[in-house]
């Protein structure tokens, strides 16, 4: 019980830390891709920048429009942040540690419906954005929120469909099972390249990352769903985006890139705890790569137009996802029978 609580707190801190430094990384990556240097004033290489940003966010004036719905206005960022943080508990962060005789799994909870839990939490995240836009009592914020909601609902269909194909292969919804299966055989990316592509595209859309960052459109809607937010409430919205990005990267690594699996590591005969820790390090390297991918794409592609976004989602991605499910089903049938 106590190790679980410690692990939970550590997980929370790691998630927040990674998200905080993702904001720094984002600015650095953006700068490097634009031939600039980026933040380098606070501390060596600007490493204290996230702390300075945090202090700034907290010290700023916290403003609320007079006509805003008081409670919903508070609830919006809270839901966005909470749901973003809740997803991390079902992800297997590593193998089983040996703590002086007692086995300890580096995963807070392993429900049979692991991946469905992730989806449920992500879906509730939409409420955070929707409530924020609605409670502001500002038509631009509402527009932004509606865009965000319809975009996230649309892309969730494809995302779920690409998972269906994966579940056909794995036969389990538990994230732990999915990882263990990849440890035994090949990574899922080999079997599901199309599903991976669809999942990544949808993950971008779900995290409201460019090129799908329509909920925040400074040119058209002043700012989007968080137009009326200031201080740390705005900070929560922005921060939740980075937490989501971290969790998405973890989910992508887990589903398609073997999670904490390192090929051929088990054959080296290292002590179990060392193997487990190396596995966790490997998982974090995979996550880092995907966070970098998020930023890489953001600073490469321009934002979609709204009708293009909907066209892509409904006319291209969903048919492709259905095709993927069909192909996977046929392949599974030919190999294993019913």
């Amino acid at each position: 019980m106590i190790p679980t609580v410690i692990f939970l707190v550590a997980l929370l801190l790691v998630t927040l830390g990674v998200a905080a430094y993702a904001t720094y990384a984002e600015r650095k990556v953006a700068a490097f891709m634009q031939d600039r240097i980026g933040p380098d004033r606070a501390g060596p290489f600007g490493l204290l920048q996230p702390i300075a940003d945090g202090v700034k966010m907290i010290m700023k004036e916290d403003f609320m429009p007079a006509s805003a719905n008081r409670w919903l206005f508070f609830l919006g960022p809270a839901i966005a942040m909470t749901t973003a943080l809740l997803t991390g508990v079902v992800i297997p962060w590593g193998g089983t540690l040996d703590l002086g005789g007692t086995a300890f799994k580096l995963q807070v909870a392993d429900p049979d419906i692991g991946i469905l839990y992730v989806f449920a939490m992500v879906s509730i995240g939409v409420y955070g954005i929707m409530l924020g836009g609605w409670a502001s009592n500002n038509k631009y914020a509402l527009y932004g929120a509606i865009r965000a909601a319809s975009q996230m609902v649309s892309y969730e269909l494809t995302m779920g469909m690409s998972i269906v194909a994966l579940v056909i292969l794995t036969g389990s919804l538990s994230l732990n099972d999915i990882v263990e299966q990849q440890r035994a055989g090949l990574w899922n990316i080999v079997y599901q390249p199309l599903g991976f592509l669809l999942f990544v595209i949808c993950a971008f859309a779900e995290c409201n990352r460019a090129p799908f960052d329509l909920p925040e459109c400074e040119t058209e809607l002043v700012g989007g769903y968080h137009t009326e937010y200031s201080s740390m409430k705005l900070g929560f919205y922005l921060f939740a985006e980075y937490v989501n990005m971290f969790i998405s990267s973890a989910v992508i690594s887990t589903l398609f890139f073997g999670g904490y699996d390192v090929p051929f590591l088990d054959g080296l005969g290292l002590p179990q705890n060392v193997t487990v820790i190396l596995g966790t390090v490997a998982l974090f390297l995979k996550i880092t790569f995907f966070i970098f991918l998020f930023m890489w794409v953001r600073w490469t592609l321009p934002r979609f137009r709204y009708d293009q976004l909907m066209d892509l989602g409904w006319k291209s991605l969903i048919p492709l996802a259905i095709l993927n499910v069909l192909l996977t089903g046929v392949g599974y049938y030919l190999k294993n029978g019913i």
Partner: protein
Amino acid sequence: MATPITQPLTKRSQVVSEKRMTLMERIYLPAIVKGMGITLKHFFRLRKATVKYPEQLRPMSPVYRGMHVLKRDEQGRERCTACGLCAVACPAEAITMVAAERKNGEEKLYREEKYAAVYEINMLRCIFCGDCEDACPKEAIFLTDRLVPTDYTRGTFVYGKQWLVEPLDPALRVDVSKRQPKAVAEFKKDRNFAHNR
């Protein structure tokens, strides 16, 4: 009725094609990968364009029009004779002055019998067009490569003589040779003109 133009007016005109995109173009992914290659190339490029401002200054054009200076002559006397031509030439009406008569014993301070007791430029109005230096017959006012410092209040932006007149110390004089064309410098040597004497 106007006859339709059959010939392109310039060589830049292009025939617009409504060719449908090929499948490779329509799935976008090759183009996206190509674009990501370009950004990655820049990511690893070592030469960065950043100028670290307070420590490192961006080289400015030699004829940059920044904050004004009121020049002194070789003997350290103020050149300005408060004729008001700069104020008249100023399209933004940023310059005001009060003229005064030189008293006995002040010959070392002012070059002519009349001088500007008060000379003010409102830096918020100034558009840095350089008409004042063109209008000045005494080579007294120049725009320099110095920048007008920023501030939080409007009041401090009316610059009086304590900001504008260059220091007496020859080492601290403001170099305006870049803004003084050769023809002007030659002209100044012509002692036939009263104001060059």
